[in-house]
């Protein structure tokens, strides 16, 4: 059982709180969030490694999946509803992946179980013909013109949501999301080339 009372998990400084602030565009919260997430990821990963029977190795993605599940589930009660939660998680994934892609490029971070797992994740995104750092910058520019389009990209690409779920989250029709998504991909392809 998790003994932490709710207010510790959602009060100022908590991951939930930082997530919410980050999604409102708070830059300082964003870097704090990334540090807090990394710390928590390490903690969970180490714990998981210790619990692992000798000789077993855990799939890096499985490890990350498990850790993120735990982190986000703990954060979940801080959200207004499912839509709010999904939008926030998608935004958080963008921050995490971009941050790690940057760290990887500059070899900033010491190799560790979590870093290996995150590398793996970043690679799986980069294989989608995307330079994550360039994408992040392009999305920042697009945001000033069309914030809704950016949200769709975050939900579809970083959140991995389907068209219908994306439509639910942003409160638009499926057809609109399909159209916007198609435009966003075209525009980003050009912006990234």
């Amino acid at each position, binding site marked *: 059982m998790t003994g932490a009372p709710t207010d510790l998990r959602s009060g100022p400084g908590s991951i939930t709180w930082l997530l919410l602030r980050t999604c409102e565009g708070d830059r300082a919260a964003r870097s704090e969030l990334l540090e807090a997430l990394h710390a928590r990821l390490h903690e969970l990963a180490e714990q998981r490694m210790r619990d692992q029977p000798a000789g077993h190795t855990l799939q890096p993605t499985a490890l990350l999946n498990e850790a993120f599940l735990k982190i986000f589930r703990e954060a979940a009660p801080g*959200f207004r509803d*499912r*839509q709010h939660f999904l939008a926030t*998680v998608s935004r958080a994934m963008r921050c995490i992946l971009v941050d790690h892609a940057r760290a990887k490029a500059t070899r900033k971070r010491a190799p560790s179980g979590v870093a290996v797992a995150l590398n793996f994740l970043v690679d*799986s995104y980069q294989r989608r013909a995307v330079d994550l750092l360039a994408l992040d910058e392009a999305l920042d520019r697009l945001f000033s013109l069309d914030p809704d389009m950016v949200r769709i990209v975050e939900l579809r690409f970083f959140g991995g949501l389907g068209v219908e*779920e994306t439509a639910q989250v942003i409160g638009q029709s499926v057809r609109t999301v399909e159209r916007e998504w198609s435009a966003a991909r075209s525009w980003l392809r050009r912006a990234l080339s």
Partner: protein
Amino acid sequence: MECGALVATEGSVVNAERWSRAKDIYAQAWELGQGERKAYVGRACGDDEELLQVVEGFFLETSEDFLRAPDSSIATGLLAAFRTGPVVSPRRLGEDFELVEPIGSGAMGIVYRANQISLGRQVAVKIMQHHLTLSRPWVERFKREAQAVARMRHPGIVPVHVVGEDSGLPYFVMDLVEGKSLREVLRERRRRMASGEAQFSDLLPGGHASWPAAVAGLVARTARALDFSHRQAILHRDIKPENILVDGEGHPLLVDFGLAKEILPDGDGDSTTRVGTPHYMSPEQISGNASAVLDARSDIYSLGVVLYELLTLRRPFEGEMPDIFRSILEEDAPRLRRLAPRVPADLETICGQAMDRDPDRRYFSAGELADDPAGRRAGPFPGGSIQRDELPGLPTRSREGRLGIRDAEPLRSLPRPRQCGRMDGVDLRGERGHERPSAFLASGQGRSLAEQPGVRPDLLRVLPRRGPVERHGLPLRQERHTLSAHPEEPVQGGDHANR
């Protein structure tokens, strides 16, 4: 290509206004076929080359993989987990519980058969549905009501032993009831009736002479349990056959207390959280807005619908949403005895009173329904005597059941009003004056509730008020004068009968 770059680097070239103009043209063109598209875009942009470039930029071909989320995306896994149920590794909850298999699901949670390791026994564990844990109010409600139910001890209510949380996932642990729900009983009874089988003693055990008698007994016991919970200030809000279990002796057990309230009317627009069947909802549940105040009589209505269905094997109102809502709000149910002529008239009367569209004309409390002498004539309606044995010291005619309570906040210090059911064998229920707090005061028998210490003023608002004395031309009072002197029903005096 340049267009994208221009937009990207020089916001001044493609400003917000131009961008939205391009988006409009693009949206129109999107609706057209490939052939017409180009011509339309050309026409719409005229000689504005830059606009044309932006619009054309939206139609660029991209490779299929471009910006497609990887299959191993974290969020994909997260979503899958939230959809399919708990990912408790390794299917363990807290320190002491090991999940075995899912055995059912309610409005807010999934129920598992589980092993309690420390005590070496099987229990039922209800775990909150994942996607509902995303809303803090729902989590709070789930926990609060679990705690409230955990405080109730009644043979007609499945006891809750432990309320806990694992990785942010609230759960509670209950007795595992080896039995079937009334839904299953109904299904089997329908099947048998269709093939001419009248045998029912295994469906509703207890040695009853007839199906209506067995039903009467069962519903009266259910009403007792409901009355008990109402007196703890807990509304069920989701009384339906699925939520009434029948154990091996034919005794009913209520489950899934009050957990559905928040998600019955509208939810958050997410259809997955909407509860399946509206057929048992009271008119006030349907017509009220989200904050509508419900009281005990809403549960009584729903129990009336269950009674109707048990007796006739069909629900009073059929149909889909939203038609069903209109039926419940406006129509009279088909006459019960027209559908089931063998049902005693008294049961029809009871059902009609429980299901009256006007809450003021319904029974005031579930206890009143269970006590209705008409029920005793219709079959062995196990009135006060049985429950008094099971629960020594409980008043049989307490009026607290009529307190409508919005949340599961027990009214511990609620004063017990003077009993005013019967006097010298005469049913006084027609004399409504005694039952209003104000009349209470006037009669010198007690202070008004508002003056009593410990009574929350916000709860006073939700006390059901008695309606006008006449009841729809039903000769109820007269009838009851002759019935109330039942041998097993001790006559209550007019003095204070608080225990």
